């Protein structure tokens, strides 16, 4: 154990889609330890939210993460409605559920493609992304855009789902179910995929619970933790669905959890369209939100998302806090990447292990810490200090009202 070299993966690395640094301590081909460093992608969205109205913040929230776009807008709307304290129409709940589940289907298929690419299986990557296009088309048909849905608004949704669009959606869901089943078959039987994923990136059940993993990561470790079932919101209380768990705790389990969840989501969309009541799609709520604080939580494709909003009675939030699922899941990465006894991690396993939590770093980087690298000293800068240092001559910064 004398020749330990640190191999940096990131912040610029082909395996990473977003900047983050994993320093792997490597002995030959074996990884004996790993250290994470995040914060390369801080965008100050929460701060920006304090200068915008609640309605405007919905569209900023949607841009926290491109892939789970609707989730953040939905969550912020939920938190805001929590402060206002009024019920929203039932049909809006169902439409939101359809939006959330379509989002989950596309996100899981996208992840499957990325995972295939990480293990060098570009053909599967191309196939999955080709077949994901039909979901994107359905989403575009439903909400008016492929990525940023702008579907949710405070008090309901902005668009209704007419009968003919719903029928088209059902047809697409039938075709998609066949495709997803085919991919499940493929992932289970393809020798090279199983060789690369079985027993890789193991996160034992007790570790997953201790490290507060969320979403498919913890469900692949055998813990049935799903906000949709544990704290039903939108229309999840009326739609039966199964919380998928696998207990092999490795990357294969995470692949299978996601594929099975996609199948469940297809069923939820069908069920939601069938059960959807008629009626209005939005309640007109006041623009100025009363004093108070609200919380919204939902199950994003990657895990639990929490939005906290505090209002001081104006039309702008006083404080807005977002907890994205990747922040919870990142903690388990060093555990997965540390060889221990029989469990050996190779350099080749690092990308797929890291990708297996479906990391989204632009959602995650909510805070920055200033560190002087030479002395190791860290400190906190207040907002006015930063302003004085960097925005001195720039009039573009709007004063807080």
């Amino acid at each position, binding site marked *: 154990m004398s020749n330990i070299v640190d191999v940096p993966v990131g912040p610029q690395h082909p395996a990473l889609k977003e900047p983050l640094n994993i320093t792997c301590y490597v002995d030959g081909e074996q990884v004996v330890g790993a250290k994470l460093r995040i914060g390369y992608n801080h965008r100050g969205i929460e701060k920006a939210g304090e200068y915008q109205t609640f309605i405007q913040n919905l569209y900023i929230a949607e841009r926290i993460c491109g892939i789970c776009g609707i989730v953040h807008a939905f969550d912020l709307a939920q938190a805001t409605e929590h402060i206002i304290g009024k019920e929203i129409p039932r049909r809006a709940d169902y439409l939101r559920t359809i939006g959330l589940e379509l989002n989950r289907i596309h996100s899981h298929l996208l992840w499957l493609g990325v995972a295939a690419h990480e293990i*060098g299986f570009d053909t599967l990557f191309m196939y999955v992304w080709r077949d994901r296009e039909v979901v994107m088309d359905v989403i575009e048909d439903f909400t008016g855009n492929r990525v940023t849905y702008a579907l949710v608004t405070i008090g309901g949704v902005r668009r209704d789902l007419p009968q003919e669009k719903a029928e088209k959606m059902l047809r697409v869901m039938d075709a998609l179910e066949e495709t997803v089943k085919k991919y499940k078959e493929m992932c289970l039987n393809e020798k090279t995929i199983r060789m690369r994923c079985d027993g890789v990136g193991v996160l034992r059940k007790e570790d997953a619970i201790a490290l507060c993993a969320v979403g498919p990561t913890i469900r692949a470790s055998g813990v049935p933790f799903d906000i949709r079932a544990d704290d039903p919101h939108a229309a999840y209380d009326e739609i039966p669905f199964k919380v998928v768990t696998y207990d092999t705790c490795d990357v294969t389990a995470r692949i299978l959890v996601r594929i099975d969840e996609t199948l469940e989501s297809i069923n939820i969309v069908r069920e939601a369209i069938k059960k959807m009541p008629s009626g209005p799609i939005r309640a007109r709520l006041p623009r100025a939100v009363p004093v108070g604080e609200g919380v919204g939580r939902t199950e994003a494709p990657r895990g639990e998302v929490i939005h906290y909003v505090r209002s001081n009675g104006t039309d702008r939030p006083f404080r807005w806090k977002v907890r994205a699922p990747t922040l919870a899941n990142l903690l388990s990465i060093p555990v997965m990447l540390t060889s221990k006894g029989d469990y050996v991690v190779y*350099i080749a*396993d690092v990308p797929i292990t890291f990708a297996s939590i479906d990391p989204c770093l632009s959602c995650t980087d909510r805070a920055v810490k200033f560190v002087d690298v030479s002395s190791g000293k860290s400190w906190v800068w207040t907002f006015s200090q930063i302003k004085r240092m960097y925005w001195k001559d720039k009039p573009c910064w709007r004063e807080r009202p």
Partner: protein
Amino acid sequence: MEGEAVIQELIDVLRTLLFPGFLFFVILGLFFEWIDRKFYAKLQNRVGPLYTGPWGLLQPLADFVKLMAKEDIVPEGAIKPIFSSVPVFALALSLFAALFLPVCGPQGIVSFPGDVIVLAVVLTLLVILVFLGGLSPASRYPEVGAERSVLQLLGYEIPLVASILGATAMTVGLGGSLSIEGIVNAQRDWWSILGFQALGFAIFLLAAQAELERVPFDIPEAETEIVAGWTTEYSGKKLALLRLARDVELAFLCGLGATLFLGGPWPGPLVPGLGGAIVSTIIFVIKSIVVLLLLTVIRAAMSRLRIDQMVNFAWKYLVPLSIFQLLLAVVVAPLMIHLLTL
């Protein structure tokens, strides 16, 4: 008489430089890269290169020219002479190896008894160049890539050489010599692949895939793991030469497969005169393309293995199979032929 000798010399030089020598193989390499990319895209329901030249035919050339024009960076800690000479030697070695191939007749430009052994040596030397190219820049990703390439060599070299020797042994049994020409002529009526060599051909395809560092054996330059492996620090002209060398090597290995197992240019040389050379060349290229398409299908249908899995797989299955195949070719096949002819 002297004039004739000079003309003969001139023809030889032209043969080496133009056809079927260096220029031919450079063009063939670029063409093969295009076929590889296009067919790979086709298998993935895509289009592949499209805009440069008709059907994107000039895309590999355009890539080469573009890389030639790019900034060439040598890392500060690199051992510069080695670092800079690796691309040149890689291209030179690939082109040298290509001279042995019987493109327009049963005989390559260079041909002597025992040239098969030289080819096996050249294939190993190419990997040693990879190792040097990975170690010389003193950077972490190339170093990992270099280590992996040598580990991988341990796995596939024996099967590769065994499959080549298997093809040779058969012809030796038939009274031919240990040379490419002998192998080609022995397949005049009966291609090797149709007999005992089918297994050898399969082993050769896998080993060639590993030699070329393509999926599932692209471990030394695994993109998502170690950036670009041993080529990480190369840029500009050096990278262009490396890529060209890789293309020529691809053409060479496809041609070698066609020569050893698919009968090389036969039945081209039956046509008399200059027509024979042209027909032979066409047949040879078509056979090489068949090998290339098989390689591309393998590339499309697998994911990258881990280095330990690769070496495991090679020693558990490839090496025993190749030795079995060699025994089949050296002992069983001549015996059966002997019995049949009795």
